[in-house]
């Protein structure tokens, strides 16, 4: 049996750094802020009082990549691109899709005085899990001046006490 061409293609894609992570963000409302660097505060329960909503953010990944360690950095990056200094994670959910997968098998068998090759193809349905994290990009006035909990984070230059 030899390696299927789909397996080789998949290996090439993997080694080329192909990722299933998809991130989308849209501005909502009338507030527009430039993209920012620096820490982003995270709210996984309730959004802080007085926060300005900048946009809606959604990130998703398939299979092994559908975990919080992979999704959260992409989520934070999108929040920062919308100009937010706080991210409100509203939820994380999974959906399951049946994905057809083609399988190839090559076998060798004796035919007369030589060996002949035969290939067969069959399709199986694999269940793929798509994990989606969604929430809001927020701007909270004065948040950038507070010392965040946890490990020290390199702070972006703060001008005039503003986190922008």
């Amino acid at each position, binding site marked *: 049996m030899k390696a299927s061409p789909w397996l080789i293609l998949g290996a090439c894609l993997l080694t080329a750094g192909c990722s299933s992570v998809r991130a989308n963000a849209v501005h909502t409302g009338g507030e527009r802020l*430039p*993209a*920012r*660097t*620096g*820490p*982003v*505060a*995270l*709210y*996984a*329960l309730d959004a*802080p009082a007085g926060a300005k909503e900048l946009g809606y953010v959604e990130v998703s990944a398939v299979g092994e990549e*559908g*975990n*919080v*360690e992979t999704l*959260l*950095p992409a989520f*934070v*990056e999108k*929040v*920062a*691109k919308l100009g937010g200094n*706080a*991210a409100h*994670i509203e*939820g*994380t*959910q*999974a*959906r*399951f899709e*049946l994905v057809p997968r083609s399988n190839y098998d090559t076998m060798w068998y004796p035919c007369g005085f030589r060996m002949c090759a035969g290939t067969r193809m069959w399709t199986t349905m694999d*269940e793929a*899990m798509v*994990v989606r994290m969604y929430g809001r990009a927020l701007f909270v006035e004065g*948040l950038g001046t*507070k*010392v*965040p*909990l*946890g*490990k*020290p*984070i*390199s702070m972006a230059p703060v001008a005039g006490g503003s986190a922008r």
Partner: protein
Amino acid sequence: MSSSSSSGALFALALAAVCLAGCGHVETREMVLRPNELTEPKGRAEIYVGAQKPPRPVYEVALLQAFATGDSATLENLTGALAARAGQLGCDAVVRVRVDTGRGQSHAYGVCARYGRSEAPASAPPEVAAPPPEAPEPAEAAPEPPPEPVPRSL
């Protein structure tokens, strides 16, 4: 008893153990938002599904996920895994729990939380901190330094 027969018996025993235990596994993943607030492991944390509110105010410590496959992909196993992991992280409760089930695998999510109020919001860990934007703004860009004089060759 020969070595081959004893190894065969061991294999049969292991196979029987696997069959009795069922196929599948449960795995938990987490993203700790407040590493300084992790405390000694506690017992199993309380589970609050969906919009159900805990009796006291809570603040988030970590995001938790549980994956399960095969026979282990049950609601009990997933919520149990979340509660156990949250207890190990020193959390009192897992709130906003949501479980999604497929044909052969399941996924659960919840926020590992502790009772009380926190003075500051949780921050993204350093490795999650926002990267610099792709194109800096022209207004904030520093003016270009004057070109250095190029030495002339004689």
